[in-house]
């Protein structure tokens, strides 16, 4: 038993330095160092007692393709691809997503993406109509602006498959959106994501001053109230 362990130990001990030397240039080494530190701390005190156990590591913004963890650095094509930061120079910034405010970029004329595959002169079919959706809970009401949406999209992208073009016909809730339904078909995937920083982009119409949140029935019936 012991001898088997020792053999394994020796094999692994030989493999590890060799393998880490290969990965020395990448972030993988950093990651393994971090992990080892955490492991050694774990001997002293429970590793559960740390800050942000479930919080993702802050991401390095707009990494170039070969360093982004998704493109294979061993592929020559990955090194030819344009790094995003080169493209984003001069564009208005935002705090989430690509960290670029795409709608502002378009409206300020900093970008002029084609509306037609081949003809650059085709103008977008823009409709300026705001839809207000009242929200049951205390969050500000949602204002859906057609204008920025139609600047990018065609009516048929949303209607009638995702949203029935009729008042009151669409049940929308945040759970559905977070799971990629309704607004979540784009928001949270390509257009600005759902984070604490972006709530107010949709929930933008404050409730009237005399508005009070409806009490839950459990609260109304509470005998100790």
């Amino acid at each position, binding site marked *: 038993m012991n001898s088997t362990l020792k053999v394994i130990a020796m094999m692994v001990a030989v493999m590890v330095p060799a393998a*880490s030397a290969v990965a020395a240039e990448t972030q993988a080494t950093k990651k393994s160092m971090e992990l080892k530190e955490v492991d050694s701390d774990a001997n002293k005190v429970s590793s559960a007692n740390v800050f942000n156990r479930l919080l993702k590591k802050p991401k390095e913004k707009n990494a170039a393709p070969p360093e982004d*963890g998704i493109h294979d650095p061993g592929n020559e094509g990955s090194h030819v691809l344009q790094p*995003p930061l080169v493209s984003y120079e001069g564009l208005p910034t935002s705090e989430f997503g690509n960290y670029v405010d795409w709608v502002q970029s378009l409206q300020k004329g900093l970008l002029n993406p084609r509306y*037609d595959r081949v003809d650059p002169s085709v103008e977008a079919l823009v409709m300026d109509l705001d839809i207000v959706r009242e929200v049951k809970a205390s969050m500000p009401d949602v204002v859906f602006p057609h204008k920025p949406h139609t600047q990018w999209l065609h009516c048929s992208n949303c209607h009638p498959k995702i949203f029935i073009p009729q008042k009151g016909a669409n049940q929308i809730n945040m759970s559905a959106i977070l799971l990629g339904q309704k607004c979540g078909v784009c928001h949270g995937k390509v257009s600005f994501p759902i984070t604490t920083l972006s709530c107010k982009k949709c929930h933008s119409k404050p409730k009237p001053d005399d508005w009070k949140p409806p009490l839950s029935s459990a609260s109304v019936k509470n005998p100790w109230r």
Partner: protein
Amino acid sequence: MNIKNTMELLGRWLVLASFAGLIALFLPAPAQAEYADVVINNYADAAGMRPVVFPHWYHRIRFRCKVCHADLGFAFKAGGNKITMAKIIDGQFCGACHNGEISWSVENCGMCHSGVPGTPTQIHGSTVQRLVAPAYKSLQDGKPADAQDKPADKVEAKPAK
């Protein structure tokens, strides 16, 4: 006796440390890729090609969403279009532009097929991927939601079907 004990301890420590190192090496490096980069791996891995990485940001600078998602018929779903090279050389999907006229042509395999082999189909940085617990697991799967105890960066997004 003492020396033997120490050696044993050292051996165990070595085993542990080296396994930790090995695991760390095989864990995917935290992806820093651009928001909305789409990895498409319906068929690529099986065909011995790297998965395709589609950069949304690059394309939206040049085209509005409407061009691909209304005119060219791309569904709003990663991997949902079942794109194959046969369709592309017929001028469908990517092939509508990547034909040597509007953009570079299909002989530049590695420009699209540039993903880390084995990466599942996904939209990188999507809200579903950022949820701490897996978004939804059907009861029929019959597996406990053990992933909830894992740190967030070890919970992998389920490949889209």
